[in-house]
């Protein structure tokens, strides 16, 4: 048996993703975002989280998915990795789940390419339910972002 993990489950489109709960500081409803000029297109700007200014990333934009309108389901997940605090805008987040690390497989080949780097693995919860575990430090790796952008262009 592997370790027990608690993960926050959130959705981008139809896909479900997971972040380990100890990396998550809080989950907030959508709030006013102040645009920051001349930064990556997926950085939506900065928010005021109880007196601390925190940059927010549209995770759809980060993963090259089409961006959508924000709804009242939209959430900002504040994560802290490598002393960086960043907010992820996701379509919805409403589940906490216990996982055993045994059910997490390495990223399947089909995902492939650069995207696979963001993935820590895929957790198989049931036959039809898969949870994509994010590799947060890669998602937040700025040099990687630059590389990604040049490939996307």
């Amino acid at each position: 048996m592997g370790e027990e993990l608690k993960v926050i489950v959130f959705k981008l489109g139809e896909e479900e993703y997971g972040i380990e709960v100890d990396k998550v500081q809080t989950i907030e409803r959508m709030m006013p975002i102040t645009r920051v000029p001349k930064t990556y297109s997926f950085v939506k700007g900065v928010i005021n989280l109880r007196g601390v200014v925190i940059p927010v990333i549209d995770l759809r934009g980060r993963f090259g998915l089409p961006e959508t309108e924000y709804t009242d389901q939209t959430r900002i997940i504040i994560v802290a990795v490598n002393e960086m605090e960043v907010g992820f805008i996701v379509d919805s987040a409403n589940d906490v789940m216990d996982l055993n690390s045994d059910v997490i497989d390495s990223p399947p080949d089909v995902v492939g390419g650069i995207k696979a780097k963001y993935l820590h693995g895929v957790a198989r919860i049931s036959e039809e339910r898969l949870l994509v575990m994010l590799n947060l430090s890669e998602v937040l790796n700025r040099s990687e972002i630059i590389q990604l952008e040049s490939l996307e262009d």
Partner: protein
Amino acid sequence: MDMNQYLSMFIDESNDHLQSLNENMLELEKAPDDIGIVQIIFRSAHTLKGMAATMGFEDLSSLTHQMENVLDLVRNEKLKMQDYIFDTLFKSLDALQMMVQDIMNGGDGKADVQSIVTSLQAIVRGEVPGGADSAASSQAAPAAETASTGIQLDEFQYSVLEQSITEGHKVLYIEVAIREDCQLKAARAYLVFDLLERYGEVVKSHPSVQEIEQEKFERSFSLYYITQKDAAELQSMIVNLSEIESAQVMPLDHETLNQLSSGVQEAAAAGTAEAPAAAAAPTDAKPEAPQTAAKAEAKTGARANGGAAPSRTIRVDIERLDVLMNLLSELLIDRSRLEQLAYEIKRSDLTETVEHMSRVGSDLQNIVLKLRMVPIDTVFSRFPRMVRDVAKSLDKKIDLVIVGAETELDRTVIDEIGDPLVHLLRNAVDHGIEPTAQRIAAGKPETGTVQLRAFHSGNHVFIEIEDDGGGIDRDKILNKALKNGIVTQSEAATMSDEQVYMLLFAAGFSTADVISDISGRGVGLDVVRSKIESLSGDVSVTSTLGKGTKFSVQLPLTLSIISAMLIKVGSEKYAIPLSSIVETGIIQRNQIRSVHGYTMVPYRDAHIPLMSLANLFEVADFDENVEEETEIVVIRKGERLAALTIEDFIGQSEIVIKNLGKYLPPVQGVAGATILGDGQVALIVDPNAFIK
């Protein structure tokens, strides 16, 4: 007992004591005969020794102990301070500093100090190299021994008593006998101690206080006591306590004290009151140790900030203050929401409550801001020692004059400004002040003066370092700059003196071999400048050849709060620091000219570049080109001016600067962010980035 929780306190206090030791040693070097300063140094060293021993740092306490032995001879005028002793003591201080540093870094504070200890011991034995006053010091050793082998008093207690007599306090030897039929001897004894402690200080009792508390005494006990009260008055007070049989109160002077402490105790026990009355001159000072210290410090003209002065402050981690500040800004944001609600609901009792809350909020904000302010003395205080050492190693005579050490600055600035100032001061001592021979030849006083000044001006703090040395040779610098390709010939021809001096801060001037070529200035001054600029400060130089040079450093009062103009561009709000705004105004479309492909507007007698903030920041919903009249902000970087077009002014405000978070790369033109009254984040414009 878990010592760890005391460790940080120990470190803080040790640093304070070391600082005070350093300062007072420097004072003493100027006035080697001032026993008052020696007393202060002795006390600091003694406290340090005690603390180190308590914490189990043996090396630290034993080295301090050796220093104490030397100082003890000095203050008893059995040894004269001289260069060699100063050097050894300074060396000891350095070693102590290293040990404390080691403890700070998690070490055990052990160090090999054998050679220093040996020198210190040699000094105590009177073996001072270089023709010492050997007669005086050879007497010293036995005297010190007597004191330390006294039956009743240890060295320190003896010295406290002796010093108290010197300072005009009354030192009494008191012998109290309790009635034979007393049931609770310890309780009676406690009453006596309680009474005595109200009017003075019990230095030593026999049997010890613990023993008395446990009733481990016969019927009588004796003690040494410092007070302002009359012996007779005290005696009657003690006797008036119930179940006290008798009290003998005998005033002591130097001689009787010495006799008593060296074992002539029987005489005192027998109650011989024939000892000459102490020549107790009346004095205002209370007998408590800290106050005595304060008085002694005042007497020597030293600043009363040493470890011995009564402390009414606590130390707070700066991060906690930041948290407090964040919470407070949250509160202020809620406050403005409440104000809005109260305004809409229009109920007078609600409005009044909210108004009151607003005032409390503002007061709170002021207090929190003040908490972050620290006198610049905390930085300045380490310079006298440094200047002394540099001057000594260069064989120069230099007087460091510090003015305005009480000037307050934000803690974050204080933490950063030390290194640049060290650079500038070293520079002034090393290269500013000429060698002694050269000074004499130039008809100047042999001793050079370096002035270190701090003062407030507006929203800024200025720190000036001025020397009366040789000044900067403009031509030498220019030639060097030309040689290094920092300036071109045509540029050189039109440069003002000021601009030439600023070349010192160019990166190319900071290599070692350049230093000896030009009058020596340029030791990493580019680093100094970039550090100061990173603190949003500025540095400038003025100099008169042959008369001296002045470096002037301008710093913001605080890094966290600035005055800013809030402006609006489309739906977005920005803050522009007032310090870079020259003026605000309105221009007509037809005033805009194109010069060399740049957009310019007339300002005063000249044309200045016009830039659109909406363009620079890619604001989608504003375009000044459709406006007939446009608001502008004239901004400045040094001498250069430019105008920024904006949509509207919101107003002036004090803002708290926050960074954008570690994730975002630095954005050109954005100096940070702030949170507005409505909870929204507004970016702070960095106008410097727009003026090249």
